């Protein structure tokens, strides 16, 4: 057995970040058919602003809320200004993806202009560490996992138990029918992008404390989130979350038992394999048409 349980626990804790991002990606995709490549960068920018506010005296816990709101607003603006005008033509899914790539570049430019190119440190919400199964985990990381779980639970509750959440799921299934029974697609999109971007902010907030705050903060996590998304199926929220955790554990196992060098390789290979073998994802509906 050795340190296997430790590796798995550590993987689950890291995986909570990937699961959060994955959930954000899927929420946005299901409601507006857009794969938002800039979701990580949105969170990063929000955390940069928050970091400056914290340095100016804002309490760290309040900073988390500020980051969520900032990212949410940025997401809403993105949807309204960049995605909605694209309309509903044939290739709009791909075009939307490309435009979010462009947005990512713009956000990077903004970060360099505003905060320069050097990494900066970011404070932890809770210092210290706890000992679990023989390994030590930073309290901040544990808190991140707990908050991530709470956020995902809240989202699940929202989508299944509230009227508007159900309406949003309906819109995702069939936008035309949803419009016909009076659901406002615009409001659905706005809320989805707010929530999805907010998730990314939470992920970025704790990632920054874990490593350091810089423009490339979320890239590595984003790839793992995408791997989780494809594993679980681009249209399944539960699948994305589970996928994110699975990737976290896989990543850690690869790092511990194969080599630290091969972690990225394995994550990308997983993406390729899943896309080739079962593009609808392990948990997604086995659809006949081209996904």
């Amino acid at each position, binding site marked *: 057995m*050795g*340190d296997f349980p*430790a*590796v798995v626990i*550590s993987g689950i804790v*890291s995986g909570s970040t990937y699961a959060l991002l994955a959930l954000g990606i899927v929420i946005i995709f299901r409601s507006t058919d857009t794969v938002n490549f800039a979701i990580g960068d949105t969170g990063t920018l929000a955390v940069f602003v928050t970091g400056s506010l914290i340095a100016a005296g804002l309490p760290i816990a309040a900073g988390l809320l500020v980051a969520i709101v900032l990212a949410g607003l940025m997401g809403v603006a993105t949807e309204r200004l960049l995605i909605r005008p694209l309309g509903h033509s044939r290739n709009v899914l791909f075009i939307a993806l490309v435009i979010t790539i462009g947005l990512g570049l713009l956000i990077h430019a903004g970060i*360099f202009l505003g905060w*320069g*190119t*050097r*990494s900066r*440190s970011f404070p932890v919400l809770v210092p210290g*560490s706890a000992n679990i199964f023989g*390994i*030590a*985990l*930073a309290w901040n990381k544990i808190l991140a996992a707990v908050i991530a779980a709470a956020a995902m639970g809240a989202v699940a509750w929202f989508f299944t138990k509230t009227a508007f959440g159900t309406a949003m799921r309906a819109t995702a299934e069939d936008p035309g029918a949803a419009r016909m029974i009076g659901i406002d697609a615009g409001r659905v999109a706005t809320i989805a992008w707010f929530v999805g971007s907010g998730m990314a902010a939470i992920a970025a907030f704790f990632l920054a404390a*874990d*490593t*350091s705050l*810089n423009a*490339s903060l979320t890239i*590595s996590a984003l790839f793992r989130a995408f791997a989780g998304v494809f594993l679980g199926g681009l249209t399944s929220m539960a699948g994305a979350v589970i996928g994110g955790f699975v990737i976290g554990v896989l990543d*850690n196992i690869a*790092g*511990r038992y194969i*080599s*630290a*060098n091969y*972690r*990225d390789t394995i994550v990308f290979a997983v993406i390729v394999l899943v896309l080739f073998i079962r593009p609808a994802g392990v948990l997604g509906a086995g659809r006949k048409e081209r996904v």
Partner: protein
Amino acid sequence: METNLKPLTQFFMKFTSAGLVAGTLALGAGNAVAQPSPGVTDTEIKIGAYLPLSGPIASYGIPLLAGMQAAINTANEAGGVKGRKFTLVAEDNKFNPQATVAIARKLITRDEIFAFVAPMGTPSTAAAMDYILNEAKVPIINPYAGMAEWYNPPRDFFYGAQVPLESQAKVIGRWAAKDGHKKLIAVHLTLVTNERQANEFAQAAKRMNPDVAVEFLSTKLGSTDFGPMAIEIASKKPDAIAMFFTQNETVALAKELRLQNVRIPIYTYAGIVINSTIDIAGASVEGMKAVSYIVPPSLDTPAVREYRTALAKVAPNEKPDYLSLNSYGYMKIFIEAVRRINGPITRQTLVQSMDNMRNYDTGILPSVTYSPKQHMGTTSLQRVQITGGKWNILGDAVDSEKDW
């Protein structure tokens, strides 16, 4: 497809290609003539450098640039050298070897720099050296980089003041063995330089004490998550660990080891001897041992005070630290070499001046000596250790080429 746009497109094509040819001719007309001493005019000496100014290694490049600029400003404010002021053209290579080659070409052909002074990056310099030194015949003076093979045999136009990375590793290996550690782990980046460092470390340790056993672990440049590696190290229970990373990975692994309660001595090399290492890693690096190229930036001597003043003027946001002090010293050596030139300032006379430099003391580095057969200015290193949250000098200086 469409057949009706041909005439228009044809015109456009001809216009474009004619324009292209004309444009490039115009662009290039002036540059086609080579000058006898590029980069040197009656009033100016233009030097160049490639540094990582963005990306993870910007934490090195930005302070290094500040130090260079500070040294240049000090010289310029004193009237320059031989009536000429220095201009520095620095470009961001993102610590990438291929980009460095492209930048080198640009600095040489577009900006026509006189020489490269204190550029940064061992893999970067390795990639561009052939072109710079052999094809373009432009000097490289004192890079923040160093591999042993660059000096054995000495290369034309290439001079350094930084003890090569492998030599540092030898010192550290010997040190670890002398301290009585037997079971060692050497962690390193997968880059060739760092891999060689780890090997030299192991060999030197074993030479000192044949009972020493060294295990190697490696990871990619840019890794941020050291959880699994820390767990692996914990399970192996070594006596001590040597790290051959950049500052980012060193700090990340040190913090993770502390988290996992792995309290073992850490040895590393001069690239980590920076005050910001302690700022970022805090208690995780308490007790870390390393070797340093230079004196501490807090030293109260005229030379270091001059540095601190100049730095504050050129980059008020930069705290005095080892990196900027380092490049300040390297630049000082170059400026002194120019000052000692007899006659016209050319790349040849620069090189001759370097070859004649004996025991020049910057007050920052150990005194440097160059000669036609010795293009490495010094082999001396100072052992240091982090105690009480500061880098402190430990014992005497060591000669990295000897068995100390």
